[in-house]
């Protein structure tokens, strides 16, 4: 039994938590990485609900929970939880209980979307070619979240700097994963973008 990302694994291939992944080594600099195997959970709840309090971040912001889960406020009353492949974020269970004042739902969307990470000092210049949102630090600093069109695909974009290096997570509809990955690579060719293999940094 093997699960696959919509993005064709390049270079040497291995298995992580039942997913086929690329094991290409990191080379540093500007790079693109397929993290689709990560667990992705969509939470919907009222913005003033108990669940919202537990999740603890407003629309447009992201934070990391103690267990390493990335919590991103992707919409009004909507959150995306990202945790390591094969895991289930503890937060999702905490909020699962019914809230009589507002409907709360938790949907596993791990298989519904691609998740890719674009990192490097030039990542802003790459994304600026295919996304109309202002990516300056004043408007979208580290920890900012927005949903917009990236290369004509609707994506959740999370600015999630990696050890001081500018980095973006892009999450969108799985079927367009290969297309978007290629579009980012094309936009990054001017800056010598590279592909790096799957890694378990987030969890």
């Amino acid at each position, binding site marked *: 039994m093997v699960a696959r990302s919509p993005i064709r694994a390049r270079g040497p291939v291995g298995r992580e938590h039942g997913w086929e992944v690329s094991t290409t080594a990191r080379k540093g600099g500007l790079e693109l990485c397929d993290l689709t195997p990560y667990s992705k959970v969509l939470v919907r709840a009222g913005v003033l609900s108990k669940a919202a309090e537990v999740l603890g971040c407003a629309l447009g912001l992201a934070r990391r929970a103690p267990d390493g889960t990335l919590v991103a406020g992707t919409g009004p009353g909507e959150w995306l939880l990202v945790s390591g492949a094969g895991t289930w974020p503890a937060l999702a269970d905490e909020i699962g209980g019914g809230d009589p*004042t*507002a409907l709360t739902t938790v949907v596993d969307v791990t298989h519904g979307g691609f998740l890719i990470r674009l990192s490097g000092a030039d990542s802003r210049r790459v994304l600026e070619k295919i996304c109309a949102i202002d990516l300056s630090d004043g408007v979208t600093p580290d920890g900012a979240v*927005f949903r917009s069109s990236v290369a004509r695909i*609707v994506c959740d974009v999370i600015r999630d700097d990696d050890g001081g290096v500018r980095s973006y997570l892009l999450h969108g509809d799985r079927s367009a994963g290969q297309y978007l990955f290629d579009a980012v690579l094309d936009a990054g060719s001017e800056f010598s973008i590279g592909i790096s293999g799957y890694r378990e940094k987030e969890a």
Partner: protein
Amino acid sequence: MIRIPCPNCGPRNSSEFSYFGELGSRPAPDAVDPAHWRHYLYDKKNPAGWTTEKWYHASGCRKFFAIERNTLTNDVKSGRPFGVESSSEESS
């Protein structure tokens, strides 16, 4: 390209939105006569000036909201969301 003030996401390019036309109200389906119903379906005021419109932020928050837009100048007054999504209504 004009910008549409999404009440959730702030101003965004209009290409992120779907336009759903002038805001109207749906007649009660049982009491309505054809003329009245088709007025609801097809007759738009299309004024040269301020009008209230429904937009959908398809590439963003996926919420419907209303804005007032001046069709002559494309000036837009801030959007307001529908229904219970706004926190003020939920807290009341």
